[in-house]
C-alpha cells in the first residue's frame, strides 16, 4: 500500500477545516458527504462509482439502440436521417463497449479483487481514483459531441479513410478519438494497478492456483488491456494528428495504405472482445459453483483456458479482415488460429456444464443469469466458429449475421454475466438483497427480449441484409410473410421487451434501496473470501487478514467432508467465522488517505483535448491544470496530519466499529 498510509484508529473525522500544515497540499479528511466520494481512494467506493457510471452509459447506449431499432422497424424508416443514424450506431457501439461493459468490469474488479485476495485496498489507491475520473470525464467528453455539431459517424471501427476530415467534416470523430484516448489512460492505469495488486497483495497462503477464478480472469483481462490499449492509443494518435494537424497517415493520395488502420484497430479490437467477455466468464465461474454447491469443475483447466484465450487472442485479429484482400496465405493462417481459439472457449462451456452436473442446484436470479449465459454464449461461440471458415465469412461479414453473432457473445455472454454478478454481489455491496421475484421477471424478459432481438438477425444476415444501413428496402427483402420487414419488426419488438427487462432491474434497485430488510451475512452460502466479511465490508475490508489453505477458503471453513459418504456437513456458520475474526482483529491497520489530486488531474485532460479541437489556448490552460495537479500529487503528504482528525483515545476494537458504520 505504498507510502500513503494512516492509522485506522484516528479515522473519525472532524467537520472543521483541516490544519494548514502543508498549505494547499493538505489531504482531504471528510468521511461523509460528497467529498467522501469525490476525493476517495477507497477501492470499494471507486468500484461503486464505476458501476453507477457504467449503468448510466448502459442506459444511454440502450436508448441509442432503441432508436436504431425504431428506425429499422419497417422498410424506409424515417425516425432518423442517414447522418443521425450513422452517429447513432457509432455511438451505440462506442458507449456499450468502452463506457458500459469495460467500466462495469472495472467496477467489479475494483470492488472484488482486493476482497477476494484478502487485501485491504489496491496497490496504488490514488492511481485507482485517477482511473475512474478519467473514464468518467472521457465518457462525458465523447458524448459532448452530440451537442457540439454532431457525434462521430464512422462506426466504432472508424475505418480509414472514411474517418478523415474530408469524409467526416464535423468534430464528432475528434471528440471520439480524444475521449477514447482519455478513457484508455484509465484502462492502462487500472491494468497496472490490478496486476500489481494481484501479484503482490494476496493473503498469506493464497497461491495463484488457490486464487478465486474471477480474480484470475480479471488478471488475464488486465494483461490484455496492458498490451492492447497502447495499440489503439497509437492508432488514435495517428487519426487525431491526421484530423487536427494535417498529418497524412491514412491519406491514400500521399501513398498511405488504409489497411494500416484496420490492422492497428483489430490488433487492439480482437483482444478487446476478450476484455469484454472474460470478466463475465469469471463471474459465472464464481456463481455456478456457489449455487451448485460444488467447486468449479476443472479449475486449472478454466484458469489455463482463460490464459490461453489471452495469448491466442493476439493471433486472430485479421479474421475481421477476411474480405479486405489479405491474400490466401494470411487468410488461411488466421482462419486456423480462429478455429484454435474456439477450443479453450469450448473448454469453459464444458466446465460450467459439468460444474452443475451432479450438484445441488439453487436457482437464484444470479444462477439463472449464469445458466442463461452458458446457453446463449454457446450460440454466439458457434456462430463465431462459422466465421472462422474464411470463405463462408466472406458471405457473412458485414451482414446482420455478424450483428447477431457478437450480440450473442457480448449480450448473451458479457451482459448476462454482469447481471449475474450484480444479483450475486448486491448484498455484499449494499447489505441488501435484490428482490428475487422481480429478478425472475428481469431475467426472463431479458432472455426472451434478447433472443427476439438478435435471433432473427441470423436469418436477416444469411439472407443478405448488410449492416450499418439506415434503411432497408423492400426490393431486397424477399417475398412471403417471413420477409425482411417481418424479421426486422420482430427484432424491434424484441428490443423493447429487452428494455422492459432492464427497466425492471432499475425498479428492483429502487425497491431494494427502500426496503429496510438487511441481507444475512452469507445469503448464498458462498465460497470465496469476499464473503468472509461484513455486508457491506468495512473500510478496511477484513479485521484480520485471513490465512488461506484452500481454493474456496470460506466454504472450507464452513464445511468438512463426511469421510463415510463424501458429502459435506456444516461445521461453522458465517456469523461464527465473522465473530472469530473480530475477536482477533489487527491492532494497527494502515489505510490510504483520500486525495484531491486524482480528480483535478483527470479534469485537466478533457480541457486539453477540448482545446485541441477548438482553441489551443484552452489546451494550454488544461495543461496547466494537469501540471499543477501532478505537482500537488507528487508533493502531497503521505497521510493527513493527526491534527486534522478528532483524537480518539478509545480501544482499537471500538474505533474499528465506528469505521464499519461510516
Amino acid at each position: 500500500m505504498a507510502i500513503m498510509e494512516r492509522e485506522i484508529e484516528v479515522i473519525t473525522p472532524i467537520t472543521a477545516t483541516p490544519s494548514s500544515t502543508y498549505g494547499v497540499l493538505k489531504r482531504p479528511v471528510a468521511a461523509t458527504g460528497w467529498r467522501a466520494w469525490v476525493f476517495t481512494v477507497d477501492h470499494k467506493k471507486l468500484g461503486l462509482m464505476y458501476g453507477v457510471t457504467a449503468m448510466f452509459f448502459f442506459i444511454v447506449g440502450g436508448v441509442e439502440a432503441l432508436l436504431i431499432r425504431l428506425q429499422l422497424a419497417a422498410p424506409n424508416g424515417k425516425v432518423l436521417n442517414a447522418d443521425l443514424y450513422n452517429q447513432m450506431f457509432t455511438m451505440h457501439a462506442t458507449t456499450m463497449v468502452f463506457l458500459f461493459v469495460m467500466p462495469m468490469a472495472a467496477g467489479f474488479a475494483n470492488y472484488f479483487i482486493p476482497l477476494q485476495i484478502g487485501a485491504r485496498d489496491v496497490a496504488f489507491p490514488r492511481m485507482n481514483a485517477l482511473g475512474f475520473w478519467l473514464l468518467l470525464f472521457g465518457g462525458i467528453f465523447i458524448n459532448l459531441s452530440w451537442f457540439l455539431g454532431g457525434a462521430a459517424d464512422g462506426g466504432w471501427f472508424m475505418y480509414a479513410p472514411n474517418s478523415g476530415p474530408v469524409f467526416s467534416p464535423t468534430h464528432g470523430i475528434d471528440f471520439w478519438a480524444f475521449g477514447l484516448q482519455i478513457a484508455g489512460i484509465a484502462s492502462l492505469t487500472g491494468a497496472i494497478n490490478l496486476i500489481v495488486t494481484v501479484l503482490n497483495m494476496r493473503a498469506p497462503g493464497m497461491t495463484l492456483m488457490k486464487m478465486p477464478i474471477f480474480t484470475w480472469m480479471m488478471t488475464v483481462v488486465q494483461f490484455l488491456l496492458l498490451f492492447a490499449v497502447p495499440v489503439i492509443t497509437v492508432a488514435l494518435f495517428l487519426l487525431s494528428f491526421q484530423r487536427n494537424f494535417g498529418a497524412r497517415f491514412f491519406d491514400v493520395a500521399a501513398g498511405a495504405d488504409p489497411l494500416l488502420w484496420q490492422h492497428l484497430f483489430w490488433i487492439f479490437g480482437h483482444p478487446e472482445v476478450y476484455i469484454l467477455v472474460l470478466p463475465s466468464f469469471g463471474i459465472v465461474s464464481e456463481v455456478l459453483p456457489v449455487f451448485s454447491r460444488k467447486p468449479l469443475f476443472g479449475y486449472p483447466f478454466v484458469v489455463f483456458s482463460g490464459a490461453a484465450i489471452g495469448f491466442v487472442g493476439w493471433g486472430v485479429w485479421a479474421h475481421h479482415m477476411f474480405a479486405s484482400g489479405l491474400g490466401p496465405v494470411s487468410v488461411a493462417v488466421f482462419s486456423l488460429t480462429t478455429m484454435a481459439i474456439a477450443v479453450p472457449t469450448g473448454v469453459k462451456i464444458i466446465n460450467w456444464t459439468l460444474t452443475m452436473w451432479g450438484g445441488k442446484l439453487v436457482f437464484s436470479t444470479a444462477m439463472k443469469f449464469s445458466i442463461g449465459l452458458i446457453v446463449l454464449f454457446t450460440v454466439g461461440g458457434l456462430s463465431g466458429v462459422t466465421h472462422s471458415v474464411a470463405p463462408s465469412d466472406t458471405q457473412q461479414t458485414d451482414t446482420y449475421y455478424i450483428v447477431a453473432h457478437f450480440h450473442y457473445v457480448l449480450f448473451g455472454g458479457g451482459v448476462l454475466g454482469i447481471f449475474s454478478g450484480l444479483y450475486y454481489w448486491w448484498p455484499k455491496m449494499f447489505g441488501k438483497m435484490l428482490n428475487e421475484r422481480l429478478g425472475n421477471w428481469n431475467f426472463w424478459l431479458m432472455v426472451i427480449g434478447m433472443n427476439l432481438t438478435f435471433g432473427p438477425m441470423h436469418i436477416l444476415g444469411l439472407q443478405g441484409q448488410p449492416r450499418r444501413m439506415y434503411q432497408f428496402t423492400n426490393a431486397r427483402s424477399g417475398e412471403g410473410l417471413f420477409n425482411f420487414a417481418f424479421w426486422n419488426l420482430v427484432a424491434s419488438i424484441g428490443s423493447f421487451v429487452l428494455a422492459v427487462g432492464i427497466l425492471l432491474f432499475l425498479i428492483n434497485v429502487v425497491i431494494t434501496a427502500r426496503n429496510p430488510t438487511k441481507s444475512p451475512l452469507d445469503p448464498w452460502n458462498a465460497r470465496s473470501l469476499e464473503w468472509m466479511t461484513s455486508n457491506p465490508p468495512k473500510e478496511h475490508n477484513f479485521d484480520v487478514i485471513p490465512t488461506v489453505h484452500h481454493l474456496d477458503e470460506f466454504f472450507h471453513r464452513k464445511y468438512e467432508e463426511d469421510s463415510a459418504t463424501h458429502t459435506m456437513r456444516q461445521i461453522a456458520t458465517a456469523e461464527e467465522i465473522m465473530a472469530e475474526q473480530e475477536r482477533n482483529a489487527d491492532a494497527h491497520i494502515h489505510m490510504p488517505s483520500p486525495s484531491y489530486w486524482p480528480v483535478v488531474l483527470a479534469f485537466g485532460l478533457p480541457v486539453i483535448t477540448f482545446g485541441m479541437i477548438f482553441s489551443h489556448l484552452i489546451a494550454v490552460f488544461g495543461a496547466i491544470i494537469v501540471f499543477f495537479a501532478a505537482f500537488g500529487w507528487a508533493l502531497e503528504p503521505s497521510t493527513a496530519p493527526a491534527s486534522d482528525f478528532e483524537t480518539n483515545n478509545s480501544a482499537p476494537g471500538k474505533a474499528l466499529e465506528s469505521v464499519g458504520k461510516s
Partner: protein
Amino acid sequence: MNHSAKHLYLKHLVTSVLRMVGKKSRTLFGVSLLSFIAASCAKNAPQDTWQPKGPNAKIIDDLQQPVFAVAGVIGLIVAVAVIYSVLKYKDRGQPIPEQTHGKPALEITLTIIPALILAVVAVFTFGAIFKLAKTDDTEMIINVTGQQWWWEYDYPVQNDFGITQPIISSGQLVLPVGTKVLLRETSRDVIHSYWIPALNGKRDAVPGRIQTLRLEADEPGIFTGQCTEFCGLSHANMRMEAVALSKADFAKWVANQQAAYVAPAKDSLAQQGEAVFLNQCVRCHQVNGLMRADGTPAIAAPDENVWSGSAPNLTHLMSRNTFAGASFDLLSKQCRDEVWNAPSDVIGTKYLAGVSQDCLNQKDLRSWLRNAPEMLPMYANPTQLAATGGKYRGMPYLALSEDDISKLVAYLLTLK
C-alpha cells in the same frame, strides 16, 4: 456423491453425447434445425447467401452447410446437457455433494474432440480458400471502381469477346455466363465492398490497391448485391446488380455499348435536351461521341467538380435498368418485373431491349434531376464543403426548370 455414482454420471454423459452424435439423430437434428430455419426464411430473398448461382458461391456453400449443421448439433448437445442438469440436479434436499475438482481424463477428451472436428473443418477450409484465390484460369477481366455511392465498370479491350474499345458502364455489371470473370477492384475515395451473394463472397475495394474477385454465373439472370463496407451517408443505398447474359446476348450487349453516338433528331425535344445536357450535365457526366455546338467533342471534367473524381458515364444509360448507384429503377414497376422475373432463356432478350419511353420510371428520374440530394443523402450541402475545397460528394441540386427536366428526360431516352 460416491465414486461409483460419479462413475455412473460420467458414463451417462459420455453415452448420451455419443448417442446424439450417432448418425441417425445427427441427421434428424440437422434436418429439423435446417428445416426450421428454412421455413422461417424470406422466400426468394434476392441476396440469400444459401442459394449459390455460380461455381464460386457453390464452393462456399458446399463448405458452409456441413459447418452450420455440425455447429447446430453441438449447440443442441450443450443446450440438452444444460437443461438435463437443471432438471436432474435441482436442489431437492439432497446433501451437499463431494467437492470434486474435476476429472482430467474427461477434460482432455472433451478438449480433443472439438479440436479434431475443427481440424477436419480446417482442411476443407484451406482447400476452398486457395480455390477461390486462383487467378490463372481467368477468361475475362472487368475493372470495378467504387466511389461514394456507385460502382463503375470498365471493360478493357478483350478481342475474344469483341471488346475492341474500352466499355465504361456503371450500376449494373454485365457478364457472359459460364465465363470465369475476374474483377479487379479499387476505390476512388473510401473503402467499399463488392458483393453479389449468388456469385461469390465479398471483397473490399480499397483505395490505392487493386484486389481481385472471381465471378461466374451458371445461368442467365439478374443477381443483386449491395456495398457491404460502411462508406458514409448513402452506404445503405449503394447497390449493384450483376446481369449474366448468354454468350450470344453478351456479344450483342458489347456491340451496342460500342455503337457510335446517334445525335437526337433535329428540332426534337431531345435535341433541346442535348443542349441542356451540354450546358449542365457534361461538367461531370461523359457521353461518348457527344459534340459541342462548335463541333468539338464534349469532354466531362468530373475531377474539377466532384471530390472523388468521377461521375457515371451516361453513354448508354438506357441500356441499364437502374440509375444513381442502382439506388433507383429506370424501369417502371411493371416493366421491371417483366424483365427481372423472366425465365433465364428469355431474360437476355428482355434485358437487351433496354428502357423504352413507355417503360421509363419518369417519376424517380424526374425527381432525381429536380433535386438529387433530396432523394439520396449526399454531402451536397455547400456549407459543408470546406474540407473538399468546394467539390461535391454526390450529385448536387442543379435548380433545373421543369421544362429543362422534360427536355433532359427526352434526351436521356435517346441514350440507348
